[in-house]
């Protein structure tokens, strides 16, 4: 690729990656957070004990977690078409990215919520707090640093997945690296995309760490 073409191509690819990661991360947060709360709440001895619900949710999450992303992506192509009307392009890539990341983040949410001292939850219940209040005013605020750290890990994983999504026409940096760096032996493009991906991941992780630290008062 000529130097004149390189910059616009990189910018476009970076934009596509950002778009895929941002929207899938947002959807993951919106879906994964309640799912994680449900996993904890339906536990035996949880806020709304429901072992059957817990077993089903846990099973679904485990299925999602056990599929390699590239398999999941291909396997749900019909679903993707149903939702977005297409199976290629950046928007289509957001569907498998979200479905891959939701179970992952839900487990991280579950772990973070379990880290909240049981005594604190009981203290709130002893004060007459309702279950909704316990979740909204005790569990989530107390687990916030862990929730942010989990989201950071999820975003980093999504950046990785998004490169694979490029393989089915999702575009983005991964797509650029494969088409030019790999298939056309353009080492320059390969190196630049690798460096770019490393820098982005570092930035995301540092930002996530900073926010989590700021939020923690332990």
């Amino acid at each position: 690729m000529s130097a004149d073409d390189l910059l616009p191509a990189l910018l476009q690819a970076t934009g596509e990656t950002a778009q895929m990661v941002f929207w899938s991360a947002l959807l993951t947060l919106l879906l994964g957070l309640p799912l994680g709360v449900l996993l904890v709440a339906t536990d035996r001895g949880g806020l709304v004990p429901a072992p059957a619900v817990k077993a089903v949710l846990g099973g679904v999450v485990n299925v999602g977690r056990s599929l390699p992303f590239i398999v999941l992506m291909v396997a749900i192509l019909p679903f993707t078409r149903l939702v977005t009307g297409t199976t290629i392009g950046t928007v289509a890539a957001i569907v498998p990215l979200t479905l891959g990341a939701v179970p992952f983040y839900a487990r991280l949410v579950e772990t973070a919520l379990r880290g909240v001292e049981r005594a604190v939850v009981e203290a709130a219940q002893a004060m007459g707090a309702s279950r909704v209040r316990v979740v909204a005013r005790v569990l989530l605020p107390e687990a916030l640093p862990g929730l942010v750290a989990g989201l950071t890990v999820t975003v980093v994983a999504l950046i990785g997945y998004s490169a694979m999504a490029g393989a089915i026409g999702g575009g983005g940096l991964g797509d650029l690296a494969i088409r030019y760096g790999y298939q056309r032996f353009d080492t320059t493009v390969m190196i630049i995309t690798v460096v770019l991906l490393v820098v982005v991941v570092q930035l995301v992780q540092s930002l996530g760490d900073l926010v989590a630290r700021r939020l923690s008062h332990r």
Partner: protein
Amino acid sequence: MSPSYFGYNLPVIHVSRLRKVYETGVVALDGVDLDVREGEIFGVLGQSGAGKSTLLRCVNLLERPTSGTVTVAGQELTSLDLAALRRARQRIGMIHQHFALLSSRTVAGNVAFPLEVAGVPRRERATRVAELLDVVGLDGKASSYPAQLSGGQKQRVGIARALAAHPKVLLSDEATSALDPGTTQSILALLKRLNAELGLTILLITHEMHVIKAVCDSVAIMREGKVAEAGRVADLIATPGSLLTREIFPLPEPAPPGSVTVTFAGQAGEPVMSSLVRRFDVDVDILGGSLEDVGGVPSGRLRIRIDGGKRAEALDYLRERGLVREHGPEPVDARQPEPETGAETVAEEAR
């Protein structure tokens, strides 16, 4: 044993035939009756595993009893639906061994929490929080986070939080067990002060006798899920062979032959020992003793041996003053041979 009271106040906490059997089959509470009168500090003493923690958690129904009833301030909690129970819980404060504060909130935020639950408007909350922090001696710490406080300060936050919604009753779950002795004393003093100034009824559980001695008006001693003994501390100390006296004033067991154990609570004014020697011409030997200040009353248990002279009359003298509670086996003293048929006249009450 069902507790009997000589007081005139009505029970503000009434626990009746409470049983709690866990799914594992463990019987944590095996038919517990308890009455806590308004305005008193009631201590439940027991080793870990005796069921005291389960009992306390049953009082605000954090734990559902298997059977039995719990009534607090005239309301039978065990018959309420969840919404009504939540409202009732707002009137029952609770403090915890490990404080159970929200680490994500400041001191003021923690104290405000129960007020939010109770739907108190923001402005009133701020006023009440400032007032409470002043009461527990934490003004100036409002915007600190719990992690920045010492254990004693954290428990003060816990107490302020528990008092926020003007509860009638305060439940204390080993509130001083995680604190050092000096801090424990200051927290106990604070509880005592709140009890006196606000008329707050306090039900506390502890495994530490010194907590009972320092602040409790009444006590229940729990063993294996049952109340083994209950009553006013002052009455139990004056009760022959009560568990409480044995636990407060430990003496080596078994008592040696010929010994007599004298228990007293607050009696003074008459020099008993010297009267004994003068009037009955006996030798008095002190074998052991234990003295304590129980709720401001000097009390103790003294094991003595009385020899020679009019020993029997000397013992009568002690009994008449309600001092002799227990005695050892028959004396085998060569100077004072006693028939083995039990001529010892100290016919003692049940132990």
